[in-house]
């Protein structure tokens, strides 16, 4: 203000210039905005403090260190009712990430298939896909989640139907038990891996859970497997590059499919054999199946509903992406003698991807955000633990919801950040 006053003194500054002179107008507006903003926020905060004082409450995150007192059924990390609210929060966050990741993968697969098939010349198939897309796009996802949850609970047999000689249900192939509480699948574990010697995990969960901790295996085992798979991936890419070079030099492309296959299969088989891969088959004991890996009805409902629902949107994006490629591209590719399958793979899809990726990013964001509807079916994600039971039991509404929002905000910003980097790298360099 003083600066502009001084300046104004030289040039005959008038107050009216603050509005009418474009040099000052933007500064005026910003100062007004800033004042309004500060006043508004200050007003809200003063209200908050007054209300808290009235109710005799305070803002504090101390409750996160207190024992939670409730149990969570799906525990990616060891947890019991004596663990802290913070740990419950982390368990919830991991569960959110699990279901979001699973749904992103299946939604993409489903969406690409449905999007391509909707453009198929086959009338029945393209109409079926149109019905699928329209039905799921036009009905709220919450309804789909609840419907699929109801279907799981009412259509699959109860565990006790598997019992006895007159059992009305039996596990699929003797190993996969689809009950209305969830689907039990065999769980891989390593008898000879690094997991059994992981004493930290055992010590942490206490003596009761030693067997459980040991059976859960170690993260290291799975990291080894992951490393081997990444190695195989790199190897196959090297093989492809070698084949490309050979083709450029000699004009002939060497047959490489068996090399790639070997690069995928051999290392992983050897590693599994060394580490002693075994399968834990679910068995009916007591009230439930024991052992194996349980995918609960709530997880299945949420996972399926999110992927089918979002798949319908992705299908539309894929279709739009393919339609955005001009017909000349297809005709040119056909003129070069490419078969329809190769036209799609080599010419259309790579170009369509540029159009498809940006909306795909927002679909992934939507999945992550919609996974918060888990609360409707009792899947213990972050909204159900921190935003649900913890909030209820401690009464710390402001703190819990703030933390909840921060988590989703971080995830969203991270996803869009990484996808934008990718997006920039595939963008057509245009002038």
């Amino acid at each position, binding site marked *: 203000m003083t600066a502009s006053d001084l300046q104004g003194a030289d040039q005959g500054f008038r107050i009216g210039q603050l509005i009418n002179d474009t040099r000052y107008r933007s500064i005026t507006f910003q100062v007004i905005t800033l004042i309004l903003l500060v006043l508004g926020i200050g007003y809200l905060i003063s209200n908050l403090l007054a209300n808290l004082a009235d*109710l005799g409450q305070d803002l504090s995150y101390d409750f996160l260190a207190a024992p939670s007192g409730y*149990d969570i059924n799906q525990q990616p990390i060891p947890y019991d009712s004596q663990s802290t609210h913070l740990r419950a929060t982390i368990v919830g966050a991991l569960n959110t990430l699990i279901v979001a990741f699973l749904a992103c993968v299946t939604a993409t697969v489903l969406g690409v298939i449905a999007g391509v098939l909707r453009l198929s010349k086959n009338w029945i198939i393209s109409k079926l896909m149109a019905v699928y897309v329209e039905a799921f796009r036009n009905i709220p996802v919450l309804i789909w989640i609840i419907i699929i949850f109801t279907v799981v609970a009412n259509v699959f047999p109860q565990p006790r139907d598997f019992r006895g000689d007159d059992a009305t249900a039996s596990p699929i192939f003797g190993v996969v038990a689809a009950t*209305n509480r969830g689907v039990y699948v065999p769980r891989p574990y390593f008898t000879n891996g690094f997991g059994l010697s992981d004493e930290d995990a055992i010590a942490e969960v206490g003596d009761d859970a030693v067997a459980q901790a040991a059976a859960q295996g170690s993260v290291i085992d799975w990291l080894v497997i992951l490393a081997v798979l990444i190695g195989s991936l790199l190897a196959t890419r090297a093989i492809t590059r070698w084949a490309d070079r050979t083709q450029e030099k000699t004009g002939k492309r060497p047959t490489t499919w068996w090399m790639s296959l070997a690069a995928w299969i051999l290392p992983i088989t050897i590693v599994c054999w060394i580490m002693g891969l075994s399968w834990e088959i679910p068995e009916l004991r007591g*009230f*439930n199946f024991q052992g194996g890996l349980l995918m609960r009805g709530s997880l299945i409902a949420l996972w399926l509903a999110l992927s089918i629902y979002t798949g319908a949107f992705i299908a539309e994006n894929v279709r739009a992406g393919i339609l955005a490629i001009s017909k000349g591209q297809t005709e040119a590719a056909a003129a070069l003698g490419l078969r329809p399958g190769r036209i799609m793979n080599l010419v259309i899809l790579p170009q369509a991807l540029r159009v498809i990726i940006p909306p795909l990013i927002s679909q992934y964001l939507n999945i992550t955000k919609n996974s918060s509807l888990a609360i409707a079916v009792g899947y213990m994600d972050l909204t159900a633990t921190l935003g649900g039971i913890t909030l*209820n039991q401690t009464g710390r509404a402001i703190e819990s919801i703030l933390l909840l929002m921060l988590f989703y905000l971080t995830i969203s910003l991270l996803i869009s950040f990484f996808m934008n980097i990718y997006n920039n790298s595939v963008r057509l360099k245009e002038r």
Partner: protein
Amino acid sequence: MNKSVFFGALAFTGLAAAGASAATLEDVQARGTLNCGVTTGVPGFAEPDADGVWQGFDVAVCRAVAAAVLGDPNAVEFVPTTGKTRFTSLASGEIDMLARNTTWTFSRDTDLKFDFTGVNYYDGQGFMVPADLGVSSATELDGATVCIQTGTTTELNLADYFRVNDMSYEPVPIETGAEAVQQFLAGACDVYTTDRSALAAQRAGFENPDDYTILPEVVSKEPLGPLVRHGDSEWFDIVKWTLYALIAAEEYGVTQENVEQLASEATDNPEVNRLLGTEGELGAMIGLNQTWAKDAIAAVGNYGEIFSTNIGEETAIGLARGLNAQYTDGGLIYAPPFR
């Protein structure tokens, strides 16, 4: 009124600018209706019937307070609340009182800054299982899948019970009671746990109630009662003594039927006279008119009548009085003297 017109015009939507100030009684009287928080639906306790009229045991307490304060048992606005929203609704002043089978606990009374006005139902958490499961005691439930309604003390009690008895279980948390029952009936869980009164109430609605048994174990103390905000003692007294008036009416034999007659002139029983306002100045002492208790009893009946019409043994819910009998009959229901 000016304010409400202004805001209403501003937003094109309805806006009730209600005060959550300390003087709840004045607010209620100025507004002409009582805002009473109830559940989203537990048969027998609070549930809208097919015409949308709220009925039930907790609802009767709301109506009694409305009758005592406003003279009209129908001047109640029922606000359905979930386990998550009930306390914030009360704290923010959206509702004047909460009658939503809420357990009286230390931390709710102190840390959350509420006042429990008494106990209208002594409950305890129980378990329900299908009869053909062959389970006769909760101690046999090791490894069972348990359906619970989230946001209640139930899940904490459950965790404690299984932990103390060194058993494992698989919790299936469900948002609403109706959906928990649906899952239980579909066999998606072996056990359904909640307050025993609610178990009985919901079992009554099953197609074959006899196929399900409620296990004998009571794993917690659940004194349920209405509550109000901390810091408004006048309002606290009104809700508290309305509840006690209903209880005392049963003890003295004042019923919905004979209350008008007993209140028309002083009777031989001075306690009844003071209760019904034909003697003494009890009404004025809590800032209400002389017939406040008579109005409440005339509106909903005495405690025993409320119990038997909503959840008693003659109803589909079929709960016995048990702990909720008058102290004279060996129960815990006891009203301090009216004098």
